[in-house]
Structure formats: C-alpha cells, structure tokens
C-alpha cells in the first residue's frame, strides 16, 4: 500500500515538473505565478502521499505548505498586479 502511494507521489511530482516548463517559458508574470501555485498544490499532494505512506510528519509539513503557498501566491499576484511593477518588469523582460 505504502509503495503504491509512493508511486502516486512520483507521478504527481513528474506532473508538477511538467508545470516547470510553464514556469520557464511563461511569457508573463501571471503564468509564472500559476506555475508557482501548481508547485504549491503539487508539493502538498506529494507530501500528503508521503505522509499517508508512513512519514506522518509530512502531513504537518503539507499543512504549513498549504497555508504559506496561499500567502506567497497572493503576495506575488498583488505585487505583479501593481502598475509600477508591470512597467518596470516589462522593460526587464528578455
């Protein structure tokens, strides 16, 4: 059973890694924040699967992660939304 959950964790991590492409290519800040959010959710899912598989402390880590990824994603979205940011970052874009 634990091994099966571990394989599920491997698949979820692989899928989250695919989300990395969007992080790398994402034309705009919005796409990058979304990729960050996907990592937050995916990371929490991987930790839950590890936690149920035996390392019970992983559930607490997932709890902290879920709480803080909300905080970080919101802060990134707010700052990316500010007029000054887009204009300043627009110039910096490759």
């Amino acid at each position, binding site marked *: 059973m634990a*091994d099966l959950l*571990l*394989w599920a*964790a*491997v698949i979820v*991590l*692989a899928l*989250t*890694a695919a989300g*990395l492409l969007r*992080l*790398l290519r*994402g034309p705009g*800040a919005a796409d*990058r*924040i979304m*990729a*960050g959010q996907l*990592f*937050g959710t995916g*990371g929490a899912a*991987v*930790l839950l699967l*590890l936690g149920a598989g035996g*390392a*019970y*402390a*992983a559930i*607490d*880590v997932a*709890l*902290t*992660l879920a*709480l*803080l*990824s*909300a*905080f*970080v994603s*919101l*802060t*990134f979205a*707010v*700052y*990316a939304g*500010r007029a*000054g*940011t887009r204009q*300043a*970052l627009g*110039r*910096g*874009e*490759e």
Partner: protein
Amino acid sequence: MMAGLVLDGLLALLVLAVAAWTIGVCQTFAATVGFTVYGLLLAVVWMRLAAPDAALTEAAIGALTGVLLLRAAIQLAPSEAGLNRLRPALKLRLLAGTLAFAITATLAAVVFHLPEPAPTLVPQVTAQQASTGLGNAVTAVLLAFRAIDTLLEAVVLIFALVAVWSLAPDAAWGGIPGAQIKGGSGDVRAYLSRLLPPVGIVIAFYIFWVGADFPGGKFQAGTLLAAMGLLATMAGLIQPPPVASRGLRWALVLGTLVFLALGLAGMPLAGAFLAYPEGWAKPLILLIEAASMLSIGVTLGLLVIGYPAGQAEQ
C-alpha cells in the same frame, strides 16, 4: 524501495533544474518565483531525508524569503533594469564556471569518501532524552543539550533587526517600520487577509504544541506567526507598531529574557547554566518555547517589513 529511489532522483533533478534556472533567468521577478518554488521542493527533499523539523522550517522560511526578495525586486526593479541586459565577459564566466566546478567536484569526492561506520550522536541523545521528558529528539537537542546555541541564535535575530532598523534615515527613526502601505483595498485580497490569519495562528500554536513530542517547535511556529502578521500588514489591515514603542521592544526581547532568566536560575537550582532542575525540564522548556515563539514571530515579521522609511522616500 524502487519507488523511493525514483522519487528521490526526480526530486534532486527538479531541485537542480529550478536552482539553475533561478540563476540563469534574466528577469528578477521570475527568479524570485523560481526561488520560492525551490524552497517548496527543498521542503519535500528534507522529508525524504527524514528530517521533518527541517522540512517545516524550510517551508516556512522559504515563504518568508520569497516575499522578502520579491518586495526588494519590485523596489529595485527600475535601478536594476539597466543591469539586466549586461552579460558579464565570457572570461569571467569561464573562470567562475571552473571555480564552481572545482568546488562541486571536491564536495562530490567528499560525499563518496565519507567514513563508513557513519559517525552518529543518536545513542548519546536517546540515552539522555528521557530526562528532558521530550519525545522529539531535535527539540531536546535544541532546548536541552544545545540550549546555548538556541539562546545565542535568538540574540542574533535581535541583532539583525537592530541592524536593519539602524539603516533608517534619521528623519524616519522611531517611525512605523516599512514603506507606508495604502489602506486595505476592499477587494478579494482583504477577504483572504482576514480569513487566513486566525487559521494560521491556530496552526502555528498547533505546530508549537506538537513540537515537544513530534516534529514542530518554536522556530516553525514563530515563522508562521510572522507570515500571518505580514499577510495582514500588507493588506493594510494592521500597521506595525512604531519602532520607538516600548511594547514592541519588550515583545522582541521577551523570549530571550525568559530563556536567560531560566538559564541563570538553573545555576543555583540545577547546578549549571541552562540546566533544568530534575523533573522540571518539560514545563520550563515549553515556557521558553512559548515566549521565544512570540519574539521570533515578531522579529522575523519586522525583518521582512524592513527599516522605517518614513514618507520621504516611499
């Protein structure tokens, strides 16, 4: 066990990919997002290394560092935009690359030549752990066997905050730390900033309480409190107290004072500095943890908010 190795391999590759990308990408905002993702992945790596306390700390501190770097990136964006397109000379990059490769190769060699009967302090810790009454070995090390490190670490945090505050321009000294944040916008963001902090505080106290016997503890709980405070502050719902306020300064040093007082009390009562009288270890440790959790939370939050900039500059 195969699944474990595949998971670890994928994790290591992912961590390195995100780290390399964070170094390579031109745009600072993207690098900050990459660094936050890197912190998340590192928390999972710490779980795979059977260090749940470190995973909790990494997840919490990673979030604070991400926000800290983002705020700095936004403020420095105009002046640093010009530097974005500057590609350092090829010569410099080659030299840096060889140095980095040399460091990595040496460390890799060390990894392969570690002493075979791996040195460990587990027997000593487990032997003495019963006297502290704590189930969590890491908390026992942090607050009983190596209490002096934790005490000095709390002092280092206060020094860091004093140093950050001392950067304030003279006109703004004693004022409200951080840039003046306009009033809470009534939109969805204020909704979450009102909803999360109570939940976060309950989770922080849970993480603190569970830290005695299971992974958790005051550092992780303090960081969560700091994150919730920041969330409310950045939404403009609360304002950090001015630097000059007495209450704030007491809150900052409370944890260290309690730690120091109990440590000194240990000398007459238990024969040595930072020693706990027989049977009293757990309650005293929990008292110290409670006090330093609040102090660490306030200190870390104010470290992110930064020095009082006053109206002139922002």
